[in-house]
């Protein structure tokens, strides 16, 4: 049965689509994977699947929610089975960023909110845009958080997390003008710090370095094994993963899934790839909202 409500990651994604159907450039960056990961954790906290304190994610009622994106993460948390730092979960989930991007696109298209079209523009590029079929959801979340910031009302937790996410991810412009951000800076900061996961995003983004990744993940004289080793090393440094046990199976040496990952790296001659848990399919990262099932990414 199709779900009828949007999760936070989907709400943020819809906020990022302008009237012409174009996705905000900041959300096409690999850094956005950290935002998606955080949004998912915030949603799980909102629905009491997890709890948090100043440092950690604490498992709570890990029942499925009927949401393909959130349920995948619930299963992972269940499998992990214990308390874990927020930053580590953000890192772990960020590695799966392309998978979540694909699922978000699929979801909002299935819900009839967006559709995907090829469109030629002036420079003769072909780019996918997302004309809005029903902008009700976008107006609702944007209007809601604007009303909250412009008032002195005590916020609901869901609005706290959305504002926290937008602020700590540096994408407040999705909902506010420059002048509004300046005039209401104190109010926005007051609300944004009320969520502990939001506080952790800021740290994760500061530590993020997308440095030299292209120099070793694509082709050249390196073997597929070397490419994948270096890619995993880069991810571990980027997301401060110190224990290989915390890597997903498809990136952890010695697992059957890792062997399949290596085969895909050999086939595509790049290690900048991701693995879709739901479909069991590998794809080359595109860092976009195009969506694997709509013909892009590899």
């Amino acid at each position, binding site marked *: 049965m199709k779900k009828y409500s949007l999760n936070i990651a989907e709400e943020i994604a819809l906020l990022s689509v302008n009237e012409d159907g174009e996705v905000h450039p900041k959300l096409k960056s690999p850094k956005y994977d950290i935002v998606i990961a955080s949004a998912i954790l915030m949603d799980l906290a909102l629905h009491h699947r997890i709890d948090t*304190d100043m440092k950690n994610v*604490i498992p*709570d009622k890990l029942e499925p929610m009927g949401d393909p994106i959130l349920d995948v993460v619930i299963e992972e948390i269940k499998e992990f089975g214990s308390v874990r730092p927020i930053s580590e979960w953000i890192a772990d989930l960020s590695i799966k960023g392309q998978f979540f991007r694909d699922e978000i696109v699929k979801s909002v298209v299935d819900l009839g909110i967006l559709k995907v079209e090829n469109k030629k523009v002036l420079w003769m590029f072909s780019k996918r845009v997302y004309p809005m079929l029903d902008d009700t959801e976008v107006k609702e979340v944007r209007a809601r958080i604007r009303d909250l910031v412009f008032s002195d009302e*005590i916020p609901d*937790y869901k609005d706290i997390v959305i504002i926290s996410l937008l602020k700590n991810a540096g994408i407040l412009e999705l909902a506010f003008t420059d002048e509004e951000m300046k005039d209401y800076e104190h109010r926005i900061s*007051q609300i944004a710090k*009320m*969520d502990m996961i939001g*506080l952790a995003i800021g740290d994760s983004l500061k530590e993020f370095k997308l440095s030299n990744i292209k120099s070793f993940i694509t082709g050249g004289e390196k073997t597929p094994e070397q490419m994948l080793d270096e890619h995993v090393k880069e991810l571990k440094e980027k997301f401060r993963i110190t224990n290989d046990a915390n890597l997903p199976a498809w990136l952890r040496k010695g697992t059957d899934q890792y062997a399949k990952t290596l085969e895909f790296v050999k086939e595509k001659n790049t290690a900048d790839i991701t693995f879709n848990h739901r479909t069991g399919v590998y794809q080359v990262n595109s860092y976009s909202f195009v969506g694997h099932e709509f013909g892009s990414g590899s």
Partner: protein
Amino acid sequence: MELKIKKEGNATILELSGRLDTSNYESFSEELYAKLEEGGKYFVMDMEDLDYISSSGLRVFLSALKKVRATDGDIALCCMSEKINEVFEISGFSSLFKVFVSIDDAVNE
């Protein structure tokens, strides 16, 4: 977490001790809301013996504050340890509540 409830003047005082976390935020919320339903308007949370609070606990406070303020009531916090005060400060929750050092100050307010 242990919760003791008493009245002092027109204030209901809730003495929290132990941990407020995933294991008990629901029962705490139920007890608190029951008191709100009884028609109480002014509440003081005596947190002297509260050792730990998670986000779920903070959210109970937030929801309760919204409900109480909607009826022109209020919730005051008092007697927080340094550790709990830090949580409220860093999260910004201390800006939402009236915070007092002693229970007498909270009740008198």
